């Protein structure tokens, strides 16, 4: 791997679920480099040549970095809020760029077509105006005031509702989604997508949730989220090119895509280009 990707090398990535680490550990890879997540106490992550990588345990996952992260792992304050159920969904492998996986997560316009009758349904396809910004102080991409009509927004929803969303990108391959909480109006359910970049066009996706929902069985919550993500996978594995084009011109965004536009711009600004396609290539 070249220094070209140094800014992304210095970031944190999920490599395992701490609670489900087998005794023999998890042999995996990070940005093309083989690593072993060792089930010691405390958990370690080591490379083939015996180098110990930095480790953080947070949001149920083991996080590591091949470089030297300048910052701690991003904070999700809701994770510590009493009364929330923390749901570890598990892993889905996708043959796509880790950046494409995040971009898809930030997208609502596909709900009626990819998650038909669950997260969206025709004729309710319109995406209204919403706000997008790169918050300079936090250095994060935020989309707020996003609204969409959903036939069944969550496992605990029974009828169609207009759902409010906020999206947040605190790291190049992680995104946090806040959405209307059917069980507790006024609060937000938190659904995250933590993406482990295995290679530029291959990733392991680890969804994780912090919900107010005392009713639904955990397995049902997990199956619901997995079903949604498998629908996304059928898209993600058939986009051309596999890498995310960062320069304008290759793909055509509209107003509904402003979150994606901001995400791409933010990636480019930071030279987060592992999994990206640039014009020069």
């Amino acid at each position, binding site marked *: 791997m070249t220094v070209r990707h140094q800014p992304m090398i210095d970031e944190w990535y999920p490599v395992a679920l701490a609670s489900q680490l087998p005794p023999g550990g998890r042999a995996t890879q990070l940005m093309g480099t083989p690593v072993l997540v060792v089930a010691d106490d405390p958990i370690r992550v080591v490379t083939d040549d015996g180098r110990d990588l930095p480790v953080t345990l947070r949001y149920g996952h083991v996080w590591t970095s091949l470089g030297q992260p300048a910052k701690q792992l991003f904070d999700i304050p809701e994770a510590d809020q009493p009364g929330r159920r923390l749901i570890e969904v598990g892993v889905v492998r996708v043959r796509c760029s880790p950046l494409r996986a995040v971009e898809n997560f930030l997208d609502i316009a596909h709900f009626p*077509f990819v998650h038909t009758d669950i997260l969206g349904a025709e004729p309710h396809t319109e995406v209204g105006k919403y706000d997008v910004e790169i918050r300079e102080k936090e250095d994060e991409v935020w989309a707020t005031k996003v609204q969409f009509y959903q036939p069944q927004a969550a496992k605990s929803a029974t009828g169609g509702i207009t759902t409010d969303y906020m999206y947040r990108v605190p790291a190049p391959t992680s995104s946090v989604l806040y959405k209307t909480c059917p069980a507790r109006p006024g609060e937000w359910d938190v659904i995250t997508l933590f993406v482990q970049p295995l290679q530029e066009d291959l990733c392991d996706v680890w969804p994780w949730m912090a919900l107010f929902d005392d009713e639904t069985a955990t397995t049902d919550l997990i199956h619901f989220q997995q079903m949604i993500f498998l629908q996304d996978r*059928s898209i993600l594995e058939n986009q051309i090119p596999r890498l995310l084009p960062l320069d304008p011109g290759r793909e055509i965004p509209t107003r509904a895509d402003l979150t994606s536009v901001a995400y791409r711009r933010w990636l480019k600004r930071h030279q987060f280009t592992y999994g990206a396609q640039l014009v020069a290539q």
Partner: protein
Amino acid sequence: MPVEMLRDWIPVALSADLPAATVLPAHTPSGILALWRSASGKLTALADRCPHRGMRLSYGFVRGEALSCIYHGWSYGQTGQCLRIPAHPELAPPGAIKAASYAVEERNGVIWIAFEPPEAPPPSLEGFQPVRSITVNMDAGAITPNGTVRTQLAGVDVLLIVAGIGDRETIAHVMVDAAASATDRIAVSNAVEGWRRTCEQLGLKELAS
């Protein structure tokens, strides 16, 4: 049949395999195209990449006279022009949003496409009727130098129209005499599996030698 015709026109599918209001991935030596038939029966071949975010259009769906992308539902007409963006129902899509479209013609039950519009129509193959298509794991050039094979299968005269669709991958469209009986067609349809195996075994031998 003049060889040039086969060079310009690429046989990609049989008409019977593409009913009204459906789309399929048409394999060609230069990659895949989204080949679709509108509800009224019109054929269109478009580049298999949605201009919005690159999703393969051959995964889409046909409604009326338009092909819609499965990702965000953008729909495209016969010229490849984007007609509708569901996220913005009031917006007339700008003319620049367009998928490349290619010449496509249907003759005697076979669908042909061409990347450059040829001067002559595709071969009519008069006197023949299509039976089925089959893919063979072998280079087209190793099967025949001129795109066609005349042979007998199950004692019936057949014409195979052959096009390479990739590295060691070829599609063959099987035609029989227009007067052939239903029994003959079934016999040929089965026998062509044997022809495929023979081709592939010969191909393997050549690779080994």
